[in-house]
């Protein structure tokens, strides 16, 4: 807890609050004031809090990142933007936390579907936003969520009506270009009963130090299907906090693919509440080099009977990088017949790389099937020798095994254009000569 720093942020808040969307909405004004009060009382999370034990965010406290009020997008390089933009997708672009209509591609949407910026949604359907904002992400969780509620300047709003299947991806492309800038965005994704939608969040930035603080709330209706992808490719000096909070109704399905590649310090929360017979699958891959610190924090709440959860997180850490995995599965007393598996596998490529992994099962029901496992290791010398005995030199053998380890998570993406985009990013992080797609 550092309330002194918090007060620097809150003092500045008074000068920018007028520019935030939804000022005319009393409920939102009240909700934001409550959030500011909560944040100033607690400050940013401290390593003394159990859920933040391994991740020290004092770097954010020392700097004062400032929200950008400048909405010009002239300094966004078109080629660079294009390299992160998906084809055949609806793309909503946020530059320094503000929606850019000019850079976004939202034409041809079915009439019944809402895909718009959060500011637009607050103007056009405020009561719908009111119903969902803060319904999955709880301020009492930790103060980044309160911070996000207070500061968010825009975001993505998606509402897919019942029974509608969207066959195109929706991408929210989050770009930060300012030095010491701060981009705070709030996304809401709602899939009504039996709807089907796939959304990808992409986070990129220029080479400077900046802060991204994003919160996504997802509501998966009864028997609906939502897949959320996250490509976190922030700059190597950036700070990233991204939380995804998911509420699943009865029989709902949710899949998350979390690719955490960038940032000097990056933390993701993925918290899922499971209702009766719902299913969730959480996949994650984190690749750390240099002095990166990448923390992934997952929580699966089995609240009702017959729900299924599957979780696999893999990490590759080189140089002095540090990875953190905290995975909690909580099975409520009512959640009989729960079927849950959680796995975390880590590959350490250097003596100075580190991983802190903490899987936790809390089971209050008595008729459940729950398993968890963790491995931390180096490349298997037997495998390296086997490849050498088949003519492959040692360095290539090491690269091949490392790449194969990571690629298992890329291969879980079934949409080809997205798969290839992610693969490109993975390959870019294996700069060694001879690493190639043919190995697959």
């Amino acid at each position, binding site marked *: 807890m550092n309330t002194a720093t918090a007060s620097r942020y809150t003092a500045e808040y008074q000068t920018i609050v007028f520019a935030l969307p939804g000022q005319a909405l009393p409920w939102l004004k009240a909700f934001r004031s409550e959030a500011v009060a909560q944040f100033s009382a607690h400050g940013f999370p401290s390593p003394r809090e159990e859920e933040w034990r391994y991740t020290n965010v004092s770097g954010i406290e020392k700097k004062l990142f400032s929200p950008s009020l400048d909405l010009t997008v002239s300094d966004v390089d078109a080629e660079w933007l294009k390299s992160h933009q998906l084809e055949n997708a609806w793309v909503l672009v946020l530059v320094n936390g503000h929606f850019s209509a000019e850079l976004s591609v939202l034409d041809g949407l079915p009439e019944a579907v809402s895909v718009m910026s959060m500011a637009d949604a607050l103007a056009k359907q405020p009561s719908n936003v009111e119903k969902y904002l803060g319904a999955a992400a709880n301020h009492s969780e930790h103060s980044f969520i309160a911070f996000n509620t207070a500061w968010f300047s825009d975001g993505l709003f998606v509402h897919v009506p019942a029974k509608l299947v969207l066959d195109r991806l929706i991408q929210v492309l989050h770009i930060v270009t300012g030095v010491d800038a701060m981009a705070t965005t709030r996304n809401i994704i709602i899939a009504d009963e039996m709807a089907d939608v796939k959304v990808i969040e992409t986070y990129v930035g220029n080479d400077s130090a900046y802060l991204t603080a994003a919160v996504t709330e997802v509501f998966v209706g009864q028997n609906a299907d939502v897949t959320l992808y996250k490509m976190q490719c922030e700059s190597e000096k950036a700070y990233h906090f991204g939380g995804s909070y998911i509420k699943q109704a009865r029989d709902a399905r949710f899949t998350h693919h979390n690719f955490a590649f960038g940032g000097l310090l990056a933390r993701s929360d993925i918290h899922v509440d499971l209702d009766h017979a719902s299913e969730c699958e959480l996949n994650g891959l984190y690749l750390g080099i240099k002095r990166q610190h990448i923390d992934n924090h997952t929580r699966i709440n089995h609240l009702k009977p017959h729900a299924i959860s599957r979780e696999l997180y893999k990490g590759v850490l080189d140089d002095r990088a540090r990875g953190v995995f905290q995975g909690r599965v909580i099975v409520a007393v009512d959640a009989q017949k729960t079927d849950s598996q959680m796995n975390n596998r880590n590959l350490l490529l250097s003596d100075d790389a580190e991983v802190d992994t903490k899987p936790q099962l809390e089971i209050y029901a008595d008729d459940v099937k729950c398993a968890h496992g963790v491995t931390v290791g180096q490349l298997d*010398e*037997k*495998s390296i020798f086997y490849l*050498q005995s*088949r*003519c492959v030199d040692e360095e290539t053998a090491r690269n091949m095994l490392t790449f*194969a380890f990571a690629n298992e998570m890329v291969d879980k993406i079934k949409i080809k254009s997205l798969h290839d985009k992610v693969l490109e990013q993975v390959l870019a992080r294996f700069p060694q000569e001879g690493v190639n797609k043919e*190995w697959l």
Partner: protein
Amino acid sequence: MLSIKNLHVSVGDKPILKGINLEIKAGEIHAIMGPNGSGKSTLSHVLSGKGGYTVTQGSVTYQDKNLLEMAPEIRAREGVFLAFQYPVEIPGVSNIYLLKAALNSIRKHNGQPEVDAMDFLTLVKDKVRLLEMDEKFLYRAVNEGFSGGEKKRNEILQMAILEPKLCIMDETDSGLDIDALKIVSEGVNSLRSPDRAFVMVTHYQRLLDYIKPDFVHVLAHGQIVKSGGADLALELEEKGYSWVEEAAA
């Protein structure tokens, strides 16, 4: 082709091989038999370049070159092939990719161009049929989820495609049922040629019913205690290993 002279090998401070002498000419099949713990696997590992062993004395010359100086992958490219006792699973790397990468490294090593994709596929499919394997195996990850017999067959498939000069087979028969043993043996027999040599390391005589050796050597306590023709294997089958060990002692 291969000349092993007074080879002493230790693991840590513990001597395992204590003066091995062996001359192998092209076209010959040598069987190395012996009880468990006699140093058979150590010999095949040292020849293929596995780490963890220290050569304290002696030399190994392969085609007039010092074999012990070469990295494992160079030995492989020079034509030394080890068929593993326990083939390793390599998740995420496909069988066909490894075959192609290996074949192309050998060709590059010999100054030849990369293999044509169509020719390669034809070659691989021929050999797959020879070993009565399912083509699907080619597109699966190397050895992942293969049964014991499938793994051993996969080793022989690699051998058939890479066409090595010196084939070292480490306990190829262990874990094989009789049908798989017949298929593997046919595969090996089809590879016999005047310019290729085999070293078969085995605990069991059964394999030698199907692949007839020219020479049989008995390894005990890190030394070759007896050498002979194919008949020696039958004698060992009948009497066990104790008589040769005692005779040597």
